[in-house]
């Protein structure tokens, strides 16, 4: 038995256990180390319904119609990005609409539970982050900031820096020594130098940060900030996450108000969920049966790997909160069919090597090695596609493309692991026992697995 095989086996067993724990319908969830994930399946609008909010431009702002006409599509895209976060797996439906010539945005969010109003309100924050110099006085957090009081320090009542000066990729939630959430940020481009100069010239002064003109931070500048900075504020984790989301995906050019809000039911209902569940089971069953009948013993191992694939993928979906609509489930079922590809490649190769007269263990070795280049190149090309789609989708605000890239990427990685590593480990464990040297176990005619003496002549790889 190879060194390390048992270690890998142990890892596989632990992985399977973790996946099963995550997949259990009434799993207790993960609540350790600051992670708070209830591990519930998020179902899409079609399966579970959600909330529907009609947003209209804030009438108090008196936007003129031409501004609205040009800016509303951008607002729509920004909202879509905010709802989706980075992964594009939340499946909202966001439409521009116009009733009697009045533009509005209809947002439908799937499976919303908890505090809907606060969630929707954070979605609506225009997200204008501004940095002010408030001289030697700190400003009370949570108060509305009035720039006219600080004209002396802020020429023209204009902030020194705004959210657009931030490097979006460097804005994230971090924790201070006491474990309180804070927001880390970094400036970008010219602003890096300007921010350094500004902070070095104003040591001892109070830097006040406002979000939509509400003070979220007012701290004295201790030293010049030339690299990353933090906004400590007094946030809950949720608040910090909301602010980061708003900062990452840009400010809304138009401020919106909620016109009406309603909960919406599932369009498909329990019937469809049951149907797709049955389809998934049948699909999985047929693939497993096929592998078993065609490849015999290795087929059984591939089936175990396939089950593990399904368990792990579903667990990862739950972990990162992929919203499963009917289409998502269909994609998942489809990936089961594709996940066996690596196994098919390897087993065909092993069979070939066995037919060529190799000894079983060497056929497995050689088959694996030769199939590996195919598996590697084909999967890398798929991963390249994922990366390009992800980059395009997230840069241009097309969440449907991002979501696809995310799930495909996960599927490819997990299937490579289960099909290549898991199956191999099982075979490594079985072959030395000598029980599996019968040709029929590999779907070959009797006598086609060479005996040791015969195979020696071409056993070098």
């Amino acid at each position: 038995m190879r060194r390390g095989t048992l270690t890998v086996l142990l890892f596989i067993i632990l992985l399977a256990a973790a996946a099963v724990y995550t997949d259990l319908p009434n799993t207790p969830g993960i609540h350790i180390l600051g992670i708070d994930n209830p591990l519930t399946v998020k179902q899409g609008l079609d399966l579970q319904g959600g909330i529907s909010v009609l947003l209209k431009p804030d009438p108090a702002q008196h936007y003129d119609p031409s501004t609205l006409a040009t800016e509303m599509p951008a607002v729509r895209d920004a909202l879509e990005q905010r709802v989706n976060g980075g992964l594009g797996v939340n499946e909202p439906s966001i439409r521009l609409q116009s009733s009697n010539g009045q533009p509005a945005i209809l947002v439908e969010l799937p499976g919303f539970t908890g505090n809907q109003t606060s969630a929707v309100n954070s979605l609506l924050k225009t997200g204008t982050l501004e940095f002010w110099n408030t001289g030697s006085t700190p400003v009370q957090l949570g108060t509305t900031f009035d720039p006219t009081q600080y004209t002396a320090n802020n020429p023209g009542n204009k902030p020194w820096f705004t959210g657009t000066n931030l490097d979006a990729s460097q804005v994230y939630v971090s924790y201070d020594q006491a474990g309180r959430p804070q927001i880390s940020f970094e400036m970008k481009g010219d602003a890096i130098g300007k921010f350094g100069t500004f902070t070095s010239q104003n040591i001892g002064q109070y830097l006040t940060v406002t979000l939509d003109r509400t003070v979220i931070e007012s701290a004295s500048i201790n030293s010049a900030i030339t690299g990353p900075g933090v906004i400590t504020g007094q946030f809950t984790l949720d608040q910090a996450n909301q602010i980061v989301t708003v900062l990452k995906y840009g400010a809304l050019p138009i401020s919106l108000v909620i016109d009406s809000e309603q909960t919406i039911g599932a369009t498909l209902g329990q019937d469809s969920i049951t149907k797709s569940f049955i389809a998934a089971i049948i699909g999985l069953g047929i693939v497993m049966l096929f592998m078993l009948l065609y490849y015999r013993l290795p087929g059984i191992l591939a089936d175990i790997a396939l089950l593990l694939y399904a368990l792990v993928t579903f667990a990862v979906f739950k972990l990162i909160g992929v919203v499963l609509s009917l289409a998502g489930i269909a994609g998942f079922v489809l990936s089961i069919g594709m996940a066996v590809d690596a196994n098919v490649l390897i087993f065909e190769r092993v069979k070939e090597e066995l037919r060529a007269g190799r000894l079983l263990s060497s056929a497995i070795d050689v088959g694996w090695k030769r199939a590996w280049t195919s598996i590697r190149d084909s999967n890398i090309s798929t991963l390249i596609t994922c990366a390009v789609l992800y980059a395009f989708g997230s840069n241009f605000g097309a969440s449907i493309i991002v979501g696809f890239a995310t799930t495909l990427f996960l599927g490819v990685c997990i299937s490579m692991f289960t099909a290549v590593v898991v199956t191999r480990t099982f075979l490594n464990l079985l072959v030395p026992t000598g029980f599996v040297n019968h040709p029929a176990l590999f779907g070959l005619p009797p006598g086609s697995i060479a005996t040791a003496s015969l195979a020696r002549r071409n056993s070098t790889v």
Partner: protein
Amino acid sequence: MFNLVGKRYLFLIISLIVIIPGTLSLIFRGLNLGIDFTQGTNIELRPRAALTIPQINTLLKPLNLQSLQVVPGSNTSLPGNQNIWVRLSTRIDTNVQDAITKALQGKYNTANSTLSVTFDDLLLDPLSGTGKATTVTVVTVTKFATGVTPKISDIESLLANLPDTSNPGKGGPTSTPTAATTTTPATTPTVSPTATTAVNSTATPTATTTPKATATATGTATPNSSPVVSVSPTATPTDTNPSNIPVKVAQVYQGATTQTVTFLTLSLINSNDLLKLKALFANSNSNYVYVLDNATVSASVASETTRNAFLAVLAASAFILLYISFAFRKVVRPWRYGACAIIALLHDVLVVLGIFSILGWTLHVQVDALFITALLTVVGFSVHDTIVVFDRIRENMTRRTSETFEQVVNASLVQTMARSLNTSLTVLFTLSALTLFGGTTIRVFSLALLIGILSGTYSSIFNASMLLVMWERGEFVFKFFNRSKVTRTPDGREVRELTRTRG
């Protein structure tokens, strides 16, 4: 061994037979775009009593709405009992409308709420018994102040003494065909005395009572009298246009649900359609509706998304070309493999797009947002599949140095055939399970994938490798790409360049 390479023209022609009509259809007819890609109408209703999706679908059927999508919901901020519908005995003019609005708002308006009172002339079935449908006015009352629960009896007493109405439908453009048919000459003799009384006397008590009696008779007396007579009471005034038809409240309804029904359709809905829709609901168990919102909505998939998906696939193709050139660097002219893999990819995309374009105008198959996902899956699968075949060619090129390129490619195809077919089979198994058991909503998705996977398998076996051979031999357009002609040995066999490395 099968000589697949020898039949390469046949395989290419089969591909072209599918692609050329599809591409032409795509150019001239485009795709039949569903609601995800085009604008449509979004209507939000509050029914009087809760309805199920199948009931709503059945109700909306006569309107013939394109790609209808019904979403039930609930809006608790508007309590069910704050929706009131008043069915009047006849159509009313603006004069009476003002009186009704004034009466209702006088009682229910508060400092910070204005009652909403709207009027619709609907073609409704009689309240009881059988008979012809007549056009009457239905008053929709809503937006009561928070906490106020209107009582049916209050509304009835408020509207007990309404002024008479002239006939607003006379000659008006909104008069419905059914209203026109009621003016049959046959009915005139029976009721002409009543009609004349009404016209001659302006506001005498007798005049008001007589038509009132006939108006109520519309509903109740119908079964006893012949259909012709039953229509006459309303028909004759319509015909002669009296200035004072009395107005009575026929029935008051109060909402009993917080349900909202939202539906999305490709069809544009004008005010006439909206009246038809309201009548359809009202005629089914008196389930009157209040239209909360009627808006034109844009696509849920932004137009740039589609364009970006397309550009992303192009960019991905370029990267794949680079990667394959790198991965195949040990064989000669590695970039040819990349180029052929990309051509096979385009082939598969064109096949799916083309077939759906044709299905769009023949079988009215519409594409939705999932179609983009399906196409992207096909792109991934296609390259994946092609590379597996190419990998075998790469391996065999380094081993079978004495054979011609065609022979090597042919051997590689035969060797990978089992794998190609098996992988496609497992995918087709799951797809068939989805199509057969997964319900109707993902049928377009499954179909697109089914076509795409079949095409992907076909193109990786029969196109990509064949193109490599043609390129190597400088056939067709490829001769412009080849700088040197194939050199041949004296016995006519071509001499293949040796690979740089062996084993």
